């Protein structure tokens, strides 16, 4: 908070030009010396002077010059103007963000003196200025770049000559051998074949060699045999599982988001599987990087040869594998935390640079400016998270292109034909309207409403109660949880299934389940109206209407505890017996439902009987069915001002033409001024710039006059432009096993979302004009994990079919100064009904009026001129073309459709049918709208400074463009020497236990320099020339003499190179956590090499507890390799963790290798280890051979070598002793188990030599 203050200071004062030299009059100077300097010295200088141990905020207050120059956030004062001086504001403690000194307010006298001093023009003796001339260390990018090795271009060298050519197997050996010779060292000999094959096997595939392979290589340890083993291992599917896991360490791979609830990161395992496939396929490294950074933007993505799914886009999931808070109080701070982590992983993994160190200031050591950080952050600001339909997205794109071509080819013709045929239905329009009016006028009015239950009886007399959620009686304001807020029910009693009446907490309240089922009743009114609140979990927290014991209608709450009215049209079941059911079948968040005020009602215009309509139709030679349709339509139009027949229907209801005219005129006037006072973010109704994008292909930006198609065919002509989903795509579904966001209301709309551009919030409410049913989501500052009341308003839905403004409260996010945004957002839309459309997005205070539903001009004219209903009816008939769009939506009132439209619709359907409906989903990035990031002074979200254009690091020449351009620059050795150096070094690290640059993730100044710099560049260049083949580079390294050396060091090497930097010999290494577990499975025979469809849940050890605890998994992990165990951030396998499996919080290129008692305890007492020993023993005990041979076989399996005679003797003795202790036969499986278990505990099992 301390730094914050200075920043705000600066923001306030940055634009002020400091006044000219201040007063030097003696009285002023005296005032300063007597009253002010002591304050500055006592209160400020410990942080704000040249003598400060650590200068805070870059601000010094030890000379006027320094104070006027100011700190990171600008001048500290404006002489003569206390009101504009941040210094005065800070000490006054008026501004909560800006309080100095931070530990407590100054005495009032001191504040007054400082204020007075500034008012007097800040007099200060001139002598001080020169004495303390500000000298801040300047950040010089070019100089830093020139001074550090890793920024320099790759250097091509000739492998040096050596004296002992026999010590060289590959060119790379020359670099090492030359140095050994310089130091007079002789390299260690080649390791024995069994050691070598074990080393190779663990390194390349993370598993011990089979007994037979080890024996064979021992017999024939030729170079040719060695190469064959290498090639076989490189080709094995287990290679990708092992090396892919190294990569996952970098990408901080996890399947949950950590924090309070450890929410699922849905479908993340597809990213893991992608990585494994990519390593197995030896995907060229440049392509791997391209796909990771911008796989969504590749013009020709790589497709999976087996199933045609999009591989490239899967790679981009890594961007979002980090932690994610579910309810941050400051979303902007949270966004920058997430982005900083993304850039940290990006920088370390691909470039070996700690770029995120420059979030708050220029990098302390490397050639990376603070602007560089924000320039890169802009690429993320221009993107957003999605779950991509990676199975079908390419097919969808193809179909969308074909649909577009079809539209160009034949849509206009089809629409013209349809309109011509539809207009034929208006031949006798006036007659129909008049007849309908007559038919309706004979109705005698509506029946009374029936209040079915308002619960004011205080009991459930009308209901059958099941479960505990609803308690014994309805709730009152006193019995519900106070945090539910204002319920807004009627009367005293209401139903609320969040039952905390016994003092339970929120979670317990949600956990209750139950059901209320009403007594049966007969449906005798058109509508059932009621109030509903609670969760929006379909089928789980809902109100159902049961007819014939089947659910025919269902409504849920809106994830709000405030009651909202709901109305069901139940005419379809009139006369039937029905029940209402109130269901709470959900136990998690929003696991509650409430209801009140259930009323059966008619409403609107009463409906005449069929006989009456038939009689009138017969008398006037009209078609009875069509007349009935007209009656029906006018009944609805009476309640729908947007219908062109609203005016006529109003007259039918008995209003005078004059009254209707007055109303329609005021409606028109209101429409004309509807948008006054709001700020338009995007207006899709008119042609013009209004940016948008989508996570699939289903949406279009439509114009007025566009044909609208639905499942049946041509549905209308658009009266205005809008963002619309083509309803053709409604068949798209997620695969049944797709995981959905834990906290996102279970929306399953991947590939069917549209979004606006990113915009700055300047008003307290967002208003979106939509038609139809659909969902709206405000992604505020990139925050998507919506749970918690603070973010509830970012999620909204429109459920009714009509046109309405959906308002969303964003009052916490308003930026007073749009050029320095505090919060930015975009809106996302997904359709719930086929006709959902988005017209206008605006922000303002109050909700705007209706700008599009204006009465048609001709209707106003007709109302003005019409002297009778008949005349009004005729005026409609006179203008059929004005009704075109409407006509097409009402085929029941118009003529039979023309075949051209049906043909066109069929052609559309044929194209759509080429797309498989179901797709798996995976996390991915998508390009949203191009938006730069704002540099934050000192990294503080409250103090934005200026926009920084998106570009690559300045040290590499910057360069704009999109993420794909960025990726291309990263992998081009002509632009950056780092990508190849970093990856080659990583390969070396995994094969030797230490990189040529030991700090594998940091090639900057704080990292360690390369021990063999020329060798590193030689390999990097070779790698680049070879197209970036990881397998071939690994092959090159493992074929070297250096790799094959024994671990036995020469005495001289220990003496002169104790750290073994020269690689005179090999260092033994402990196996990784995964390899240890996998080796036990392999040796025991339990290993199942089939990749599982999904991750295997880990076995929880009883000490793993807390929120988000997943379901328990099998002790043996279903025998699968460790890479397939689920990685839940808060619940990582404790066995793997003990052996240094990394916490997935940042890029980890080098795991720590610890040695802690927990490891030995696991080997001694963990059920998994015992279980594997037992399973191994089962096979050994079943072997009929002599015990000696079986013991030998066990040593071969565990250590890839035969048992020595001492070992065999010891083992036999152990078997005997154990048998005696257990009172069992020496060949009993339980006896062998104990021997097997000791071999797992032997340290040799843990180490690779």
């Amino acid at each position, binding site marked *: 908070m301390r730094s914050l203050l200075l920043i705000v200071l600066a923001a306030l004062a940055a634009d002020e030009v400091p006044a000219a030299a201040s007063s030097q009059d003696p009285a002023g100077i005296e005032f300063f010396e007597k009253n002010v300097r002591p304050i500055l010295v006592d209160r400020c200088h410990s942080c704000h002077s040249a003598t400060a141990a650590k200068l805070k905020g870059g601000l010094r207050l030890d000379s006027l010059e320094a104070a006027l120059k100011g700190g990171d956030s600008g001048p500290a004062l404006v002489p003569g103007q206390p009101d504009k001086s941040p210094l005065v504001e800070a000490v006054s403690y008026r501004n909560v963000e800006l309080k100095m000194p931070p530990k407590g307010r100054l005495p009032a006298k001191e504040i007054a003196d400082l204020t007075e001093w500034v008012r007097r023009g800040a007099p200060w003796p001139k002598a001080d200025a020169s004495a303390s001339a500000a000298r801040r260390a300047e950040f010089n990018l070019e100089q830093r770049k020139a001074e550090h090795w890793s920024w320099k271009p790759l250097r091509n060298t000739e492998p040096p000559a050596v004296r002992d050519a026999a010590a060289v197997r590959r060119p790379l050996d020359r670099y090492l051998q030359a140095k050994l010779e310089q130091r007079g060292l002789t390299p260690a000999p080649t390791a024995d074949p069994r050691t070598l094959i074990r080393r190779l096997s663990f390194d390349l595939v993370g598993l011990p060699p089979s007994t037979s392979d080890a024996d064979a290589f021992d017999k024939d340890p030729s170079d040719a045999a060695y190469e064959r083993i290498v090639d076989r291992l490189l080709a094995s599917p287990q290679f990708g599982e092992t090396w892919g896991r190294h990569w996952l360490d970098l990408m901080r791979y996890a399947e949950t988001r950590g924090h309070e609830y450890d929410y699922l990161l849905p479908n993340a395992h597809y990213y893991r599987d992608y990585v494994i496939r990519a390593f197995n396929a030896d995907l060229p490294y440049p392509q791997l990087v391209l796909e990771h950074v911008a796989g969504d933007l590749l013009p020709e993505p790589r497709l999976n040869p087996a199933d045609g799914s999009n591989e490239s886009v899967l790679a981009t999931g890594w961007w979002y594998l980090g932690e994610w808070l579910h309810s941050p109080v400051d979303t902007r701070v949270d966004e920058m935390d997430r982005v900083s982590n993304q850039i940290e992983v990006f920088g370390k993994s691909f470039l070996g640079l700690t770029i995120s160190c420059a979030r708050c200031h220029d990098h302390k050591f490397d050639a990376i400016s603070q602007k560089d950080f924000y320039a890169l952050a802009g690429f993320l600001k221009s993107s957003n998270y999605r779950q991509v339909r990676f199975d079908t997205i390419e097919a969808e794109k193809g179909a969308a292109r074909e649909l577009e071509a079809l539209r160009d080819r034949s849509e206009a013709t089809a629409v013209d034909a349809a309109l011509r045929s539809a207009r034929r239905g208006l031949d006798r329009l006036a007659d129909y309207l008049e007849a309908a009016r007559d038919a309706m006028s004979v109705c005698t009015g509506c029946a009374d409403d029936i209040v079915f239950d308002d619960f004011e009886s205080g009991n459930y007399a009308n209901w059958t109660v099941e479960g505990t959620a609803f308690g014994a009686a309805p709730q009152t304001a006193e019995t519900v949880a106070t945090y539910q807020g204002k319920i807004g029910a009627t009367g005293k009693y209401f139903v609320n299934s969040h039952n905390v009446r016994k003092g339970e907490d929120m979670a317990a309240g949600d956990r209750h389940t139950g059901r209320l089922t009403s007594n049966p009743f007969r449906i005798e009114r058109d509508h059932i109206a009621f109030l509903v609140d609670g969760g929006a979990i379909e089928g789980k927290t809902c109100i159902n209407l049961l007819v014939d014991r089947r659910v025919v209608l269902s409504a849920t709450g809106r994830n709000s505890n405030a009651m909202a009215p709901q109305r069901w049209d139940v005419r379809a079941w009139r006369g039937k017996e029905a029940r209402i059911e109130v269901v709470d079948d959900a136990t998690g968040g929003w696991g509650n439902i409430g209801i009140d005020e259930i009323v059966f009602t008619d409403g609107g215009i009463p409906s005449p009987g069929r006989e009456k309509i038939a009689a009138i139709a017969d008398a006037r030679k009209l078609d009875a069915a069509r007349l009935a349709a007209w009656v029906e339509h006018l009944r609805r139009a009476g309640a729908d001002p947007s219908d062109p027949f609203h005016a006529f229907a109003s007259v039918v209801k008995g209003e005078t033409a004059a009254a209707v005219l007055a109303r329609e005129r005021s409606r028109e006037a209101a429409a004309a001024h509807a948008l006054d006072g709001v700020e338009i973010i995007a207006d899709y109704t008119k042609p013009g710039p209004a940016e948008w994008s989508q996570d699939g292909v289903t949406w279009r930006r439509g114009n007025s006059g566009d044909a609208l198609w639905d499942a049946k065919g041509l549905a209308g002509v658009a009266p205005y432009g809008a963002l619309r989903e083509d309803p053709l795509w409604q068949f798209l579904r997620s695969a049944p096993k797709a995981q959905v966001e834990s906290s996102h209301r279970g929306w399953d709309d991947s590939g069917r979302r549209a979004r606006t551009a990113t915009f700055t919030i300047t008003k307290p409410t967002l208003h979106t004009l939509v038609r139809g049913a659909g969902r709206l989501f405000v992604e505020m500052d990139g925050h998507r994990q919506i749970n918690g009341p603070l973010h509830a308003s970012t999620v909204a839905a429109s459920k009714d079919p009509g046109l309405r403004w959906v308002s969303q409260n964003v009052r916490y996010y308003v930026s007073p100064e749009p050029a320095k945004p505090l919060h930015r957002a975009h809106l996302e839309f997904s359709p719930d009904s086929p006709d959902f459309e988005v017209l206008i997005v605006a922000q303002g205070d109050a909700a705007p009026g209706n700008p599009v539903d204006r009465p048609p001009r001709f209707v106003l004219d007709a109302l003005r001129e019409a002297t009778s209903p008949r005349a009004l009816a005729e005026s409609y008939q006179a203008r059929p073309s004005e009704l075109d769009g409407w006509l097409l939506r009402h085929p029941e009132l118009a003529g039979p459709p023309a075949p051209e439209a049906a043909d066109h619709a069929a052609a559309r359907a044929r194209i759509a049918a080429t797309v498989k409906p179901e797709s798996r989903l995976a996390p991915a990035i998508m390009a949203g709208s191009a938006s730069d990031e704002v540099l934050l002074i000192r990294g503080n979200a409250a103090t934005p400074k200026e926009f920084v254009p998106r570009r690559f690091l300045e040290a590499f020449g910057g360069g704009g463009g999109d993420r794909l351009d960025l990726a291309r620059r990263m992998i081009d050795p002509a632009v950056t020497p780092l990508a190849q150096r970093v990856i080659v070094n990583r390969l070396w690290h995994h094969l030797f236990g230490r990189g040529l640059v030991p700090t594998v993730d940091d090639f900057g100044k704080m990292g360690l320099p390369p021990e063999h710099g020329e060798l590193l560049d030689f390999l990097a260049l070779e790698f680049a020339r070879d197209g970036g083949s990881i397998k071939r580079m690994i092959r090159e390294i493992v074929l070297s003499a250096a790799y094959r050396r024994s671990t036995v060091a020469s005495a001289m090497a220990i003496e002169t190179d104790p750290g073994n930097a020269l690689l005179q010999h090999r260092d033994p290494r402990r196996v990784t956590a995964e390899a240890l577990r996998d080796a036990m499975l392999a040796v025991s025979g339990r290993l199942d090499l089939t990749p599982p469809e999904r991750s295997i849940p880990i076995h929880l050890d009883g000490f793993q507890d807390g929120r988000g605890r997943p379901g328990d998994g099998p002790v043996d992990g279903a025998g699968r390799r460790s890479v397939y165990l689920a990685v839940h951030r808060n619940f990582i396998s404790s066995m793997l963790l003990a052996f240094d499996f990394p916490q997935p919080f940042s890029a980890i290129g080098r795991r720590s290798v610890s040695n802690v008692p927990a490891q030995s305890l696991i080997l001694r007492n963990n059920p998994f280890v015992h279980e594997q020993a037992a399973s191994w023993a089962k096979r050994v005990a079943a072997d009929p051979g002599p015990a000696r041979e079986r013991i030998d076989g066990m040593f071969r399996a565990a250590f890839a070598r035969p048992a020595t005679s001492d070992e065999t003797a010891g083992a036999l003795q152990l078997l005997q002793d154990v048998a005696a202790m257990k009172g069992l036969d020496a060949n009993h499986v339980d006896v062998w188990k104990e021997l097997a278990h000791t071999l797992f505990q*032997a340290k040799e099992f843990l180490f690779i030599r």
Partner: protein
Amino acid sequence: MAHECGRVREALTRRAMLAQTATGFGGLALSALFADPKSAFGDQGGQRGVHFAPRARNVIFLYMDGGPSQVDTFDYKPMLEKHHGRNPQQVIGRVEKTQFDNNGTVMRCPWTFRRRGESGLWVSDLFPNIGGCIDELCVVRSMTSNFSEHTAANYFLHTGNGSQGRPSMGAWVSYGLGSDNQNLPGFIVLNGGLIPVGGLDNFNSGFLPASYQGSLFRPADPPVANLRRLESTSALQKRKAEFVKSLDGLARATPGYDEQFESAIRNYELSENMEAVAPETMDFSKESDATKSLYGLDSKDPATATYARQCLIARRMVERGVRFIELTCPAIQGHDRWDQHGGLRKGHEDNARAVDQPIAALIRDLRARGLLDETLILWAGEFGRTPFAQGADGRDHNPYGFTVWMAGGGVKRGHAHGETDEWGYKVVKDKLEMHDLHATILHLLGVDHKRLTLRFGGRDMRLTDVHGEVVREILA
């Protein structure tokens, strides 16, 4: 490490030398050195060990999960009584955004505040027993946090950073100072049943070696994962271990293994010792009945009895040289941690009852045994609560000013430091930031927080990031 190790020193690397030193001559504790980063990575920066004379040897961190209310415990604010029921915006002024966004009216403290002890510090009746020890306490009424959401605030309190993956306070302390007991970890979390929001990462070692992560002990048997043998008899387990050792001995005799292998062998022996020692730590058979009932082991309230066990175990661990012991709160049937968004009265009473007697007993017992002066007790939640209501009878999170207290280990006794405004809402005097608290704790342990660093990702990382000042005013 400039110990004289004779010719061994010539031939072995730094790691092996450290190992020799520790077993043979003391120095850094055992658990600390096994995990030393490999010597090839050069100097990891920073200085481990004490930098000056320590005031405390051990820390007991009584973590008050969920955020107790300062205005209902130690920070007496009569203005709340006076303005009870009024709109906070009208009487308090600017109200910050809260997690639940459901702010009600100004709410008085439902309990009576009294001056207690010779110091006359205010304590509410929520803590009758702790109130009885008030003269041992150094109450800090001006604590702040940067986060008003549990997870980030918990990480911040525990690790000095609001995100996952950083080393916990206890990890830093045991990394810096090692443990005085070679058979127990240096950082132990006694889990009463409530894992803090944010999970085990609150106790993690982050980028420090894994050996410094908090070992989770239950106040039950077995206290630690994988501690209990699965063999039917200990003789059998012993016989097997003998064979394992003989195999290791044979392997050690073949050339080509280095000191890592040696360390693993010793680690195996250490784990054997731990299997014996850890259960003994939890064994109360030698404790007197008076001690047991002082702590409340016989309490009818199961939460009190659980916390009593934790506190007594904590004392026994201090006696055995465990460096840093954190206690999580006991689970209370049917109620939440100190996180009363509603039902403040019942929730706070339940939580207070669970910890009040055991904590007071811990203070008295340590004092009686002469251990309090070298043991720093820290009582803290991740934030405080709002002086105005959430809904009708709850309080929302408040990071702008809340109370923590310390006792023993070199802090002033019967002392209060800092002030919040007259509402108990925001700090107005002697503000403490989280890094200041951490710096002060390290200082009391004889550690300069700026010198205890580890290089990671191109930076010298510390518990206090780039902040933190020792609060000298509270040092005794």
